[in-house]
C-alpha cells in the first residue's frame, strides 16, 4: 500500500506540476499513438511551415536584405515570432480548455501558462537551430557573430511571451469575444513586427510609429547577433527589455487579482 507522501514545499509542488504539464502537453500534441511519426512530428510541423514561407518569400518575392541571406533573415524573425504567437493564442482559451486539469489541486492556471511557454520555446528554438544548420550547409550562413546575445534575445522573447500570455489568459477568461479580437490583432502584429521584410525599408515618418512595437527591437537585435554587419539604426534592445519587465509586472498583477476567479465555477 502507498506510503503517505511527505509534504513538499510550494516551490517543489509548482516545479513538479509545471514539469508534469510540460510532458503531458508534449505527448498530447505530438507523441500520441495516432501519429506514427511520434516525437519527430514536434519538429516536422514547424519546419514545413517555415519552408513554405521561405520558398514563397525568397524565390517568388526575391527579397534582399543587408548583411545576410534572406533565409537567415526570415528564420531569425519568424521562429521567435511563432514561439510568441503560439503561446499567446493558446493562453486565450487556456482556462476553459483546461477545466479538467484544475480539478487537481496542485494545478494552477499560471502553471499551465508556464508549461506552454517553455514548450514553445523548446520546440521553436530546436527548429531554429536545425534550420540554421541546414542553411549553413547550403553555404548561406557565415557563422554567428554573438551567440550569447542571440541566446539571450531568445530567452527575453520567451519571457515577453509569458508576460503577454498571462494577460491574455485573464482576458480570454474574462471575455471570449475580446479573445477573438486579440487573435485578429495578432495577425496584424505579424506584419508590423518586421518579420518578412527589414524595417529599414520603411519611410522614416511611418517607422517611428512602428518602432513602438517592442518585438521589432527584439527580432532586429537577434539578426544583429547573427551578423554584426546587419544595420540596426533606431533599434533599442533596452526598450524591449523594459517592455518585457512592464508586461511581466502587469501580467503577474492581473493574474494574481483574477486567479481565484478563474478557478471558481
Amino acid at each position, binding site marked *: 500500500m502507498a506510503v503517505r507522501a511527505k509534504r513538499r514545499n510550494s516551490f517543489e509542488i509548482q516545479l513538479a506540476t509545471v514539469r508534469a504539464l510540460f510532458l503531458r502537453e508534449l505527448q498530447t500534441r505530438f507523441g*500520441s499513438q495516432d501519429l506514427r511519426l511520434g516525437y519527430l512530428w514536434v519538429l516536422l510541423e514547424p519546419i514545413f511551415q517555415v519552408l513554405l514561407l521561405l520558398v514563397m518569400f525568397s524565390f517568388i518575392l526575391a527579397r534582399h536584405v543587408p548583411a545576410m541571406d534572406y533565409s537567415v533573415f526570415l528564420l531569425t524573425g519568424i521562429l521567435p515570432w511563432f514561439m510568441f504567437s503560439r503561446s499567446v493564442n493558446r493562453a486565450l482559451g487556456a482556462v476553459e480548455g483546461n477545466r479538467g486539469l484544475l*480539478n487537481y489541486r496542485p494545478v494552477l492556471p499560471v502553471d499551465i501558462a508556464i508549461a506552454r511557454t517553455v514548450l514553445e520555446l523548446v520546440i521553436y528554438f530546436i527548429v531554429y537551430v536545425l534550420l540554421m544548420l541546414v542553411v549553413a550547409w547550403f553555404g548561406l550562413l557565415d557563422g554567428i557573430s554573438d551567440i550569447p546575445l542571440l541566446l539571450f534575445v531568445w530567452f527575453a522573447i520567451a519571457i515577453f511571451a509569458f508576460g503577454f500570455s498571462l494577460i491574455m489568459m485573464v482576458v480570454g477568461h474574462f471575455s471570449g469575444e475580446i479573445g477573438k479580437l486579440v487573435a485578429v490583432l495578432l495577425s496584424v502584429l505579424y506584419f508590423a513586427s518586421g518579420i518578412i521584410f527589414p524595417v529599414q525599408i520603411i519611410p522614416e515618418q511611418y517607422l517611428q510609429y512602428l518602432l513602438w512595437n517592442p518585438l521589432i527591437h527584439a527580432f532586429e537585435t537577434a539578426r544583429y547577433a547573427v551578423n554584426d554587419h546587419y544595420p540596426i539604426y533606431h533599434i533599442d534592445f533596452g526598450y524591449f527589455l523594459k517592455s518585457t519587465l512592464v508586461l511581466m509586472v502587469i501580467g503577474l498583477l492581473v493574474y494574481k487579482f483574477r486567479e481565484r476567479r478563474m478557478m*471558481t465555477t
Partner: protein
Amino acid sequence: MIELKHLTKSYTTPKGRHYLFKDLNAVLPEGKSVGLLGRNGAGKSTLLRIIGGIDYADSGEIVSNSTISWPIGLAGGFQGSLTGRQNARFVSRLYVPEAAVAEKVAFVEEFAEIGKYFDMPVKSYSSGMKSRLTFGLSMAFEFDYYLVDEVTAVGDAKFRQKSANLMAQLRERSSFIVVSHNLKELEKQCDVGLLLLDGQATFFDDIVEAVKVYEANVLAKK
C-alpha cells in the same frame, strides 16, 4: 479536521442572486466520515469542491492541514488522445516525487485490470474501463480525506468487491466526504452528516439523524 468558516456561495441568475449557502460554519471532526445531504442543486458538489480547494466561496475560508483528494471518479482531467498509462503517470507526477511515480502507475495498472487497453488512448475506452481507470487512480494515493461525488459502483461484481475491500482498508486511516442520494449507502459509509437545506447548513453528529431530518423535509415538501 476541516473547519468551514463563514462560507457564503452564490450565483447570479437572470432572476437575481441565488445563494447556495450563507455564512456556513461547521467543524468536520478528525477521523469521521461526512455525508453531505441536500436536494439536487442545493450545492453539495460545489461545497465538496470548495472543501477540496479547487473552487472558492464568495467569502469565508476553509481551515485545515489535512490532505484532501480530488473528487473520486473524476475523469475531466484525462486527455483522450493519451493512453491510460500516460494519464496515470501525469496525475502521479502531480502528487508524488518522480521516484514514486512508477510504483503508483503499476498500482493503477494492476488495480484497473484493463489489460492492454492500459496502453491505448483513453478515448477508445468503454465507460466501464474509464471508470476502472479513474477509480484505480484515486485509490493509488493516500489522503486524509477522500472526496466522493455520487460514485455509483463501477465494474462487475468482482471489481466492486475489490473496490469495497480497498475502501474499507483506506477507512482505517482516512476519512470520506460523500455526496450521494443513496441514503442507505450514506448511513453505512458515514459517521456524521451535513444537511444543506434552503441555503442553510445543519451539522449532525449522527448520520442517521441527518438522514431522518432530510427525509422528513423532502417528503414534507412534496
